[in-house]
């Protein structure tokens, strides 16, 4: 077991509920720590003792494979005891309220709660009712801070910086917590952020989020350094928000022809899970410019950095 390094970064707040509220230094501090963990995670022995004896509960009110397993691995590599709870199938079905669940779990004295919920603001509500630290693993269409952090680190490792890069976020901006967290983070670090979507998938007032808004993908991609695709959920692509997956792919799916409008060395990113042939062509998703798999790897490191940063604040730490 490697011991906790002396350089660990302290986040000056009990919870990590969103990118909103983090300072530029907070973000850079988290990214720097995560950078170390990327290297550590490539060693044979990946185990740390930072969270030894601590209990981490992953409380997922919405199905997730990659985020939940990423947090689970992150906690275990830091030495915590990790428990996964998928609430779909248990007490919420029996009518227990969110707050009852929080109070029940709190009584079991966890140190960290990692929470995903389908309602915006639900994680913050829960955080107010517990004594431990809470990490938002995605709340509704509000925030998904660790995703934005891992995206930022992926960009920084590949481009050496984030400042002044043109980042184009394409797709279902309206329903995307990933888009919101990324817009805030990338703006804080000085990137130029663009969004591209049909008007039905843009939230009202988006132009006041500090982004340039495009409805034509080729224009939105012109000279972009980073192309960040978002997932379009199936129930939204059959006439309610867009007419069909065929039409969506034709106008807003990332294929080689559209990607050619971006810079030749532009990175292609996607938070997953992908709908191949809907928002992204397989040839691009698996192509030379894609860093989609790297995003997953870096996700574990970023979550370790987040858990560690909050752990520095624990009572008796």
């Amino acid at each position, binding site marked *: 077991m490697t011991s906790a390094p002396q350089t660990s970064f302290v986040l000056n707040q009990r919870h990590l509920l969103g990118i909103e509220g983090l300072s530029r230094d907070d973000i850079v501090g988290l990214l720097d720590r995560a950078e170390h963990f990327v290297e550590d995670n490539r060693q044979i022995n990946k185990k740390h003792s930072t969270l030894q004896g601590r209990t981490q509960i992953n409380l997922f009110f919405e199905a997730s494979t990659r985020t939940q397993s990423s947090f689970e691995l992150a906690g275990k590599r830091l030495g915590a005891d990790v428990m996964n709870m998928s609430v779909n199938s248990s007490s919420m079905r029996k009518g227990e309220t969110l707050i009852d669940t929080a109070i029940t779990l709190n009584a079991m004295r966890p140190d960290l709660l990692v929470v995903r919920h389908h309602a915006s603001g639900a994680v913050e509500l829960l955080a107010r009712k517990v004594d431990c630290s809470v990490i938002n693993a995605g709340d509704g269409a509000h925030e998904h801070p660790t995703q934005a952090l891992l995206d930022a680190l992926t960009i920084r490792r590949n481009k050496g910086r984030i400042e002044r890069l043109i980042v184009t976020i394409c797709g279902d901006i309206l329903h995307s917590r990933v888009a919101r967290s990324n817009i805030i983070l990338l703006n804080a670090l000085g990137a130029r952020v663009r969004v591209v979507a*049909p*008007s039905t998938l843009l939230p009202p007032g988006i132009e006041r989020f500090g982004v340039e808004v495009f*409805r034509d993908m080729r224009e939105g991609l012109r000279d972009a350094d980073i192309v960040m695709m978002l997932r379009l959920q199936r129930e939204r692509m059959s006439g309610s928000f867009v007419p069909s997956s065929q039409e969506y792919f034709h106008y807003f799916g990332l294929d080689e022809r559209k990607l050619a409008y971006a810079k030749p060395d532009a990175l292609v990113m996607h938070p997953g899970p992908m709908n191949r042939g809907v928002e992204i062509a397989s040839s691009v998703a698996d192509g030379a410019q894609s860093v989609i798999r790297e995003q997953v790897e870096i996700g574990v490191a970023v979550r370790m950095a987040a858990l560690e940063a909050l752990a520095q604040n624990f009572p008796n730490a």
Partner: protein
Amino acid sequence: MLSDRRPILLTNARIVDPSRDSDFVGDLLIADGVIRDAKRGIGAAGVPEGTEIIDCRDKVVAPGLIDMRAFVGEPGAEYRETLATASQAAAAGGVTTIVMRPDTVPAIDEPAMVDFVLRRARDTAIVHVHPMAAITKGLKGQEMTEFGLLRAAGAVAFSDADRSVTNAQVMRRALTYARDFDALIVHHTEDPDLVGDGVMNEGEFSARLGLIGAPKAAETVMLERDMRLVALAGARYHAASLTCAESLDVLRRAKDMGAPVTASCSINHLALNEIDVGSYRTFCKVVPPLRAEEDRAAMVQAVASGLVDVVVSDHDPQDVETKRLPFEEAAPGAIGIETMLVAGLRLVHNREVGLLALLRALSTRPAELLGLPGGTLRPGSVADVVVVDLDMPWVLDPEDLKSKCKNTPFDEARLQGRVVRTIVAGRTVYEFV
């Protein structure tokens, strides 16, 4: 084909071109399917060899009409009308472009259907045909169609035909999405719940006939809603079938605020009123119903002023079996593509509307709204031209009509004015002899 496209010179004509606000006596030269020149005194000397010279003294030469809403039964209801028969009826009425309703069977709600109709029209129709595509899949008012791909395939506008999209959320999203593709949404504004079982205009007359009335408010309520949604979404919107003074107030307010809103009115609602229903004449049963005389007069006034942009035939062929029924059971609809211009001329002769304003609503405005060539006599534009004798008196015999169905509200009517020649892309497709 090319052989009968020899150049044509229309001489001594009264040339009326609403696209340029011009009305003068002169000559019009057509060659290679294009209008070469339109001015005083081109004369026989100044034209290419082999030019067909046609004396149009005392006749009007105007842009061919663009009928922005007609039902063509192909595919699915070929017994009512085919692309071929509709186009022959159109040519006889001076209509050089038909804009088709999408409520065929199956409906025009996917790109393959647009392609099918365009190919069939190319092979069988003698005038230009452009389909509108459905706003929602299967005209069901629930899921929007592929506006982008449909437009790319050749749909000139989007409409659920004579159905209203009653779900405001669906309509809002459709308008929002349409804006990105600069698609024109053509919407029939009639709240079906408020129409209920109504079969004619609600009022004293329907009460006397003992028929259930449909209130004008059914139209105005839906139009008001749409104006709010357009303000949210910003798409180009066209009210497909306005019929009453109250709707005109709503339209005027929206236009005054600069909303991208336009409107059309059917020739039936300009030329006829509820009294024409008379003793339960089912040929005068249309949707929306014929209104009171005040409303008819207001609609005509709105066409004269340009508040209502477009006049359509609302051509709707119905065979005898569906019309020879008690009024409330009969199918609604009237044919009109062949008589639209003549019925309009009645308003001109009565000095209710000027010739230039009428022709503008029948050609120039629809061309502008749909982005079609035509609607103008400007040199260089497509040679879609109609020659009209404004004064020729005649009595309409339904058997002479080209349409497959004869459900015209003008049967046996005394009419003044007649289309004498229709030219599509430089080729004469109809001639009255």
